[in-house]
């Protein structure tokens, strides 16, 4: 890679040994945890036996991933201190969920394992199947760029110049994830998440200390302010983020990512009781701020570092002094910066922590999407006749199939927009509709099945926020932002849920219908189900 040809990394054999030992350890945990798997509850929600500390560790272990570090690092590099507003609103959103228990409290009370399972209880199996398909499709699409991002990180940090070698390493890591996730399910996921949380958290804090020690606080602030001007500190400045983006940030990174995004909700459903759910979110609020602010700060330090270093800076700046529009290069700014400032040994620890974080995110996501497809699509369609053994077998096969799809998608998809925007928009295909269905379903008795179908379907409008789709239908660049598409889709889903429910109310309320073992035998998306 071009960047690697110029920047000399200090990544040594000793660092590779640290990475190797660490990764081997996670596979051993997977094999060992397999002894504790007895049924689907153990596999998906670890027998609903997580305490609050482990819940916090495993939630943050999944949410602070390598991809998270990369895209928030890119956001800090490109936008300066103003990007911190995302962390601030995310923390406020998570604390709000922890204080009120909004969405996650009632969901835990329902005793469901996944969000579509709730759809089934509330609106019938047809909504459950549609919800499961939308969720899995959006989630897998969302995950599609993870491998490529991981490869860019590794290339930047280790100075590996051959893209083929990097891709093979990433494929190897994916294989490791598949191995221990298929074997150990949620029990191995929570244990590895715990270890990864500890290693990565300590690693990130040490990186910040080294960055400030290397550059100095005043130099960093002065450089970034001189480069970005007011838009680099004021998130409301229309030349930078602007008001619509701040509202979108609060919605996506505050409310959605902790109360509606399935991997987070799955954690909420794994803890002992509703009280623990609230406690989990209150404690996680600071983690939700941290997972955004620390990578952004490192990205800001990277900007100051490359502004001070003309030779290396050429990789990231155009001739007119602006930041390059090449997303791959701006993503690599953070790892290349770290490779320049961290000493041997520490570089290996950070790499191990980051790669572990990469695995941690992937294992949770793979398990989540496979569980959704088995529990919310295959099982209802088969009339709830799948045995536990068959469910586990299908989940394990699906994890491998999704893994292979991700590998191919990562190689062919042209990521020509900011990574953070790609992730928000692809996720919006699911969460805009889900937000409407959950809010109305949980808090309004009048919410109906037709409204739920319409709201979930409306989520698909979010694909118009993806740059390749905009290019294909001729929408000029800058004419319709990701935030505008996302907010527009959210409002549309809410309105359709309300109007659909008012115009086509359910004649009978379906709550508790799944306690009847025969409920799914008459599968009919629009039929009536007796209590």
């Amino acid at each position: 890679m071009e960047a690697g040809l110029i920047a000399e990394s200090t990544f040594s054999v000793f660092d590779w040994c640290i990475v190797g030992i660490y990764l081997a350890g996670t596979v051993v945990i997977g094999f060992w945890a397999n002894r504790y798997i007895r049924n689907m509850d153990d596999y998906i929600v670890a027998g609903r036996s997580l305490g609050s500390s482990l819940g916090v560790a495993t939630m943050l272990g999944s949410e602070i991933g390598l991809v998270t570090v990369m895209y928030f690092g890119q956001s800090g590099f490109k936008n300066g201190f103003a990007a911190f507003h995302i962390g601030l609103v995310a923390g406020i959103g998570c604390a709000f969920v922890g204080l009120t228990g909004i969405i996650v409290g009632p969901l835990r009370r329902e005793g469901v394992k996944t969000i579509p399972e709730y759809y089934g209880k509330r609106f019938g199996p047809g909504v459950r199947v549609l919800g499961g398909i939308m969720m899995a499709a959006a989630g897998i699409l969302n995950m599609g760029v993870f491998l490529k991002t991981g490869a860019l990180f590794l290339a930047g940090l280790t100075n590996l110049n051959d893209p083929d070698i990097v891709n093979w390493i990433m494929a190897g890591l994916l294989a490791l994830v598949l191995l221990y996730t298929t074997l150990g399910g949620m029990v191995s996921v929570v244990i590895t998440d715990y270890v990864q949380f500890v290693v990565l958290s300590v690693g990130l804090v040490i990186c910040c200390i080294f960055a400030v020690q290397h550059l100095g606080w005043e130099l960093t602030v002065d450089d970034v302010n001189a480069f970005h001007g007011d838009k680099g500190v004021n998130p409301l400045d229309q030349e930078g983020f602007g008001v619509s983006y701040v509202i979108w940030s609060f919605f996506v990174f505050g409310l959605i990512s902790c109360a509606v995004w399935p991997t987070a909700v799955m954690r909420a459903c794994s803890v002992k009781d509703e009280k623990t759910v609230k406690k989990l979110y209150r404690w996680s609020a600071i983690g939700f701020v941290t997972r955004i602010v620390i990578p952004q700060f490192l990205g800001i330090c990277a900007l100051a570092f490359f502004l001070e270093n003309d030779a290396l800076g050429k990789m990231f700046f155009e001739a007119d002094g602006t930041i390059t529009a090449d997303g791959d290069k701006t993503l690599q700014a953070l790892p290349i910066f770290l490779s320049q400032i961290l000493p041997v040994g520490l570089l290996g620890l950070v790499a191990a922590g980051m790669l572990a974080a990469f695995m941690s995110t992937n294992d949770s996501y793979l398990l989540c999407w496979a569980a959704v497809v088995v529990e919310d699509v295959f099982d209802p369609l088969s009339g709830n006749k799948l045995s536990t053994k068959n469910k586990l077998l299908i989940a394990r096969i699906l994890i491998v199939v999704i893994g292979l799809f991700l590998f191919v998608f990562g190689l062919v998809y042209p990521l020509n927009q900011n990574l953070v925007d790609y992730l928000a928009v692809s996720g919006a295909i699911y969460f805009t509709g889900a937000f409407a269905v959950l809010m109305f379903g949980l808090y309004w008795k009048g919410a109906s099945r037709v409204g739920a179908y319409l709201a979930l379907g409306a989520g698909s409008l979010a694909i118009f926020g993806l740059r390749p789709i905009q290019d294909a239908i001729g929408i000029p660049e800058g004419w319709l932002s990701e935030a505008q598409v996302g907010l527009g889709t959210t409002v549309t889903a809410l309105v359709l849920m309300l109007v659909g429910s008012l115009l086509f109310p359910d004649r009978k309320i379906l709550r508790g219908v799944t306690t009847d073992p025969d409920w799914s035998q008459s599968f009919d998306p629009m039929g009536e189900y007796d209590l």
Partner: protein
Amino acid sequence: MTGWMFVWTMLLILVLLVYGFVVVVVTFGGAKDIREMLQRIKDDK
């Protein structure tokens, strides 16, 4: 220092201090929770 810059500086300091504390608490609490989780699953078998 502008108003916004003051807010972001305080946020960064707060994040580093509180997160450091959370990491310590969760590290020790999480190890205890893992032991209890595995014991509970074992007992249920």
